[in-house]
């Protein structure tokens, strides 16, 4: 009998460990839930010009200007939004630090820094 209880006890212990792991894991992953960041495009500027974020976070660019803009990765044109019309937005999940610019107004520049 006592052996059975011991086995039960061991079973509960293992079960407890399992849940502890699940909880620990979920706690850990909750710290990594991707965040959403907004970059406003206004007055012909990206605001903020430099944004710090975590890998996998999403950035939404919102065009508050009268004129159209775009968002293009600067080094290799690795990604680009296409035209973002006035009062429209575009979003992208970010995995790498990237410099970007507006291909329609090439002097408009922004920076994403993955910390």
């Amino acid at each position, binding site marked *: 009998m006592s052996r059975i209880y011991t086995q039960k006890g061991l079973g509960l212990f293992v079960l407890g460990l399992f849940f502890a792991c699940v909880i620990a894991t979920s706690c850990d992953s909750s710290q990594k839930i991707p965040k959403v960041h907004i970059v406003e495009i206004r*007055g012909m500027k990206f605001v903020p010009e430099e944004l710090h974020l975590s890998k996998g976070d999403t950035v939404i660019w919102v065009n508050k*200007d*009268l*004129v159209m803009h775009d968002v293009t990765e600067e080094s290799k044109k690795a990604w680009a939004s296409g035209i973002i019309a*006035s009062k429209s937005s575009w979003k992208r999940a970010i995995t790498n630090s990237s410099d970007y610019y507006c291909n*329609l*107004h*090439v*002097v408009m520049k922004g920076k994403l820094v993955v910390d």
Partner: protein
Amino acid sequence: MENTRNLLIKLSRVALIISLVTVTVSAQDNPKLTDPEVASVAVVANQIDISYAEIAKKKSKNEDILQFATTMINDHNEVIAQAVALAKKLGVTPADNAVSKSLLAGAEKTKKMLKSKRGKAFDRAYIDNEVTYHKAVIEAIESLLIPETDNAELKSLLNAVLPALKTHLGHAETVQKKVSK
């Protein structure tokens, strides 16, 4: 309404400054424009830059020039739309006048000059003119119109347009450096 009228007279002085840069106007030729005439000048000043861009799109093969010209067409069309909307709100219908005509006459000369050039010489002439034109318009709006404007709507439109013009100038200067190499 009296305020609006004063502002529109000021706007006509700005239009005159722009016209002085692009075409020679005699000193005593200082017309007082009506509201509809001023609205016309605002539209014409933007249309002129669009017409230069349309020539560039036909004549240039340079990627930077073509991209810049497309942006000029898009952005100046948007400014025209905003100016027309404000004119409508103020109860004004654009009408031809001496200043808009002199602006157009100056633009005709520039267009003729642009059409006579090819290849790199065209690219340089086009972008040099864009730098000059945007500088003149920015100077006129910044040093004269904005400080003297009391009308909130006009002021906010001018403030909204100014960063775009400055960005165009910066963009034009960047292209100018590349093209002059």
